């Protein structure tokens, strides 16, 4: 996993609530046995027209937002299935962080394990970010993971929550499996004591 320290980038607005994992990456893309090629399926239901051509109205297809490494989305982002293909697709496309007012549990877990940072902000900050980017698509923000801050163009720094463990793993770019593997003696002892 690539470490995440700070990121300054413009951001792409997706101002809908309850964006589900079937929209992030439809099930027809889940037949892969690796993590390749998912980026082209990202938001494909919204991104492509029925003839397969890009929908010019969808944010991902607007040149204004090209190169954005941060996604801004409405409440309860990532609800639905447990597919880790959702963060894989977002990262494959180039996103490193998602800002929302809240995240669905499994999506949040999956994102953190892949170096995709979920940044939860209050509703007012969300609305401010939305109106800023609607006015000026090149608006950029800075995320500082160590400080747990999101800095807006006016210099205001908003703090966001992340658990200490995931934060350390993301800052260092280490897989959480390493920690679990180190517990194997304790797991053995537990199995013995519990008769498992």
């Amino acid at each position, binding site marked *: 996993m690539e470490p995440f320290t700070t990121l300054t980038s413009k951001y792409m607005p997706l*101002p*809908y*609530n*309850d964006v*589900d994992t*079937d*929209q992030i990456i*439809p*099930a*027809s893309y*889940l*037949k*892969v*046995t*690796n*993590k390749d090629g998912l980026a082209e399926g990202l938001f494909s*239901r919204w991104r492509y027209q*029925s003839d397969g051509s890009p929908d010019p109205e969808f944010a991902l297809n607007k040149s204004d937002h090209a190169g954005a490494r941060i996604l801004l989305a*409405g*409440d*309860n982002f990532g*609800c*639905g*299935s*447990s*597919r*880790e293909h959702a963060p894989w697709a977002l990262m494959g496309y180039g996103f490193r962080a998602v800002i929302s007012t*809240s995240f*669905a*549990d*499994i999506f949040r*877990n*999956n994102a953190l*394990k*892949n170096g995709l940072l979920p940044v939860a902000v209050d509703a007012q900050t969300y609305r401010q970010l939305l109106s800023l980017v609607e006015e000026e698509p090149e608006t950029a923000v800075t995320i500082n993971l160590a400080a747990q801050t999101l800095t807006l163009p006016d210099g205001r720094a908003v703090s966001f929550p992340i*658990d*200490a*463990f995931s934060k350390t793993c993301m800052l260092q770019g280490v*897989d*959480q*499996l390493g*920690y*679990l*593997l180190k*517990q*194997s003696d*304790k*797991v053995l002892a*537990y*199995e013995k004591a*519990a008769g*498992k």
Partner: protein
Amino acid sequence: MSQAKTLFDKIWESHVVVNEPGSPSVLYIDLHLVHEVTSPQAFSGLRQKGLRVRRPDRTVATMDHGIPTRNLVNSDQLSVNGGQWVIQDAMAAKQLKQLETNCRDFDVPLYGMDSPNRGIVHVIGPELGLTQPGKTIVCGDSHTSTHGAFGALAFGIGTSEVEHVLATQTLLQYRPKTYRVNFAGALPPGVTAKDMILALIAKIGVGGGTGHVFEYTGTAVSQLSMEGRMTLCNMSIEGGGRAGMVAPDDTTFEYIAGREFVPKGAAWEQAIAQWRALPSDEGAAYDKEVTIGVDELEPMITYGTNPGMGMGISTAVPDPAAEADLSKRASLQKALDYMNLPPGKPLLGHPVDVVFVGSCTNSRISDLRQAAALIDGRKVAASTRMLVVPGSEEVRRQAEAEGLHHIFMAAGAEWRSAGCSMCIAMNGDQLQPGQYAVSTSNRNFEGRQGAGGRTFLASPLTAVASAVHGQVTDPRVMMSQ
């Protein structure tokens, strides 16, 4: 003084292996269910790191998402086996093959293509008796919450976590909060567990349970069969919940007694004694509570593009103009645009192109019995296609032994073999763009059942009534005829 504990507290606390400050708990996993779609990258991870599956004896795999349901078992004349599988989708075929290879290489038991026990992972776990009270159960599938019906702590995980459990039999987890959902009263005729859970999600919203584990309590829950409880727990995730649980009782024990992986003899008696201690203690505290009275509940149906956009079947689709919250108004408007539905009108009478009876929510034998009883002697409307897809091969055999398949086929419905089928539309069973479906599955997201398809979620009874009339129909009208 010992503190009163909830069912969740008891299972959680008895499975914590390590609890270091500043780190999530290391939680022991008793049972890991695996399917073809969310596991290949996890097995690849093991290979890359030179790791083994730590406890193959606590791991069980099956094939359900990508598997065809139209093989040569779908009529009387043909028998199940004989290598009759034709998988036209090369990627799906490769993924299924990969699971076979992974299970062979890592000694994981697999209920594969030709196993008589194959089926939707959340149907076969309980069927085989793998699902038991007090267990921690995970699967790379959000509907793992189904198993909570037995008083287990069961939840969906991502593929990284699948790898974690394969390698260590543990998971890193923060303790979720608890949310008691009290279903008070008694269900009226024609109203089912599916309507209960749709009513809950309509009330609290699709993010209402985020960070929480539901415990379903109340007379309406204790009166449910195990299959009804599974339907209820199955859609916990649609309410945003991490898991859903029902306290084990005699109904639970009667259901699991004698199943293949359930303890027998003296061990069974011992297990029952332990399980009887699991229900929440008197006075145990929950972080959140809600009560839903079911005496007046009517069949529920969804009108929008998430499972929280549901209503009683006789009521009208809400008007976005009446929604004060601007972002909610925009979501509702977007949903109605996609569904091409006018606000302010009921769905009753709306034409239906396809009816799907199946999925891990409603594909068990009692669902099929209910559906068959209502359609017996009737016909699916000429304008409507109806698919009945049993949840497992065991369910299919049972249904055929009872002659249910004859009833469905005589009515003009398609009778299939087991799989996830049109719930997730990965196997070729799917809606065409613009079509409307009444579906007994769990998700009505845009394009979930096929690109451009539009889904009304409902119970098997509402699905059958709608199939017969070719339009959204209240099953209670037919039940009184």
